[in-house]
């Protein structure tokens, strides 16, 4: 399954993730994708290597104060911070998402947003929004476009839109030029992680009325 991912992260997102410059919701998206995609994990870790070189080149004369090593040993003696609970690897939600949901899919607190579509907004900083979307098999998410960037990654099932078909691990990167209507495959309910850094624009009246509820 791991090798079947066809739609990957862009270099600038991976570099910004490695450099630590993304809003939290985007970090969550990248971390979730990397948990499923070794191709992008390798790319991401090569950008970490750039950071390692930057660190190595730092001037070491900014010396630590006297006693700092002893203070660090005292810190170590306090013991390791509590390890995060291990998540089952066969889960639908990769580990970074489970940290936000508090478990796998059955722990998601869905809120209906109409037409069978459900969502759960995840607690991140407000610069960008991360939400889980539940699209019933065969249903469509209202036709919309974007002010900013929208990343959508499939966790279960699959969806298709005007661009292509997207299955587990695939990421669709949409900007303002894209106007799309994602439709879930008929065979299975689709669960996605969607991240946006600006409100979506819906093209029809009804969905626009939903917008306050969707908070998108």
């Amino acid at each position, binding site marked *: 399954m791991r090798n079947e991912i066809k739609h990957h992260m862009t270099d600038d997102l991976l*570099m910004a993730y490695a450099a630590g410059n993304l*809003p*939290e919701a*985007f970090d969550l998206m*990248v971390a979730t994708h990397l948990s499923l995609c*070794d191709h992008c994990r390798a790319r991401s870790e090569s950008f970490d290597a750039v*950071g390692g070189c930057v660190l190595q*080149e730092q001037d070491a*004369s900014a010396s630590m104060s006297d006693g700092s*090593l002893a203070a660090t040993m005292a810190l170590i003696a306090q013991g390791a911070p509590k390890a995060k609970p291990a998540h089952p690897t066969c889960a639908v939600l990769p580990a970074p998402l489970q940290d936000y949901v508090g478990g796998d899919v059955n722990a998601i607190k869905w809120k209906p947003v109409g037409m069978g579509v459900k969502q759960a907004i995840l607690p991140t900083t407000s610069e960008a929004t991360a939400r889980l979307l539940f699209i019933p098999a065969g249903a469509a998410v209202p036709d919309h476009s974007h002010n900013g960037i929208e990343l959508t990654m499939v966790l279960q099932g699959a969806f298709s839109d005007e661009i292509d078909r997207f299955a587990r691990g695939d990421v669709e990167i949409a900007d303002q030029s894209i106007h799309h209507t994602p439709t879930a495959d008929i065979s299975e309910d689709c669960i996605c992680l969607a991240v946006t850094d600006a409100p979506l624009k819906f093209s029809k009246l009804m969905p626009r009325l939903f917008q306050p509820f969707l908070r998108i």
Partner: protein
Amino acid sequence: MFTEIDTVTLDDVAAQHVVKSAVRGAKRFKGKPVNGPNKCCDSRKEWVDHVRRIRDAKDQIAFAELFQHFAPRIKAFLIKSGSDAALAEECAQEVMATLWHKAHLFDPTRATVATWVFTIARNKRIDVLRKQRRPEPEDLWWGPEAEPEQEDVLALQQETAQLRDAMAALPEAQRQLIEKAYFGDLSHREIASQTGLPLGTIKSRIRLALDRLRHAMN
């Protein structure tokens, strides 16, 4: 024990350790005992052994040497990222403590010690300066049983050294832009994907390491 380290120089500590090791007939303390504060050449491989010694033997001498090399660099990195000196110092200590606790997770076929330390320092910066959680991918590690191949370790270290040389050879303005990004001074919209860095080989190397790790995990 810990306070002793504080009152003598690291060289003294290392020297004492060499003596103690010799007395015990221990063979694992090989090579140069102490790296000078600015001499990092020839030490890349050695830092890997340092982390292993911390992991396997909770070796405080290895830790003291890593601390001497990396803690000031972490501090300088955090100051350039916008921290004041006192906070940067505190964070550098916490980063080094994390290195101790997570030594078992370090994979030398995918990262040098400097790269790994960078990721811990970056996460600390996000946590403390940006007050934001940092989602990380699922941990992948060799576990207590398996060990990576030495030649894979060496190859990764060498390719990282080449990357470092390539970065040093970049035009000044371009190098500064990359540094700025890694200090957290550029938003993700400002980061251009064309860094001009030759990341192809190191990426393939890491991918190979991941494949071997997956194979070992199954």
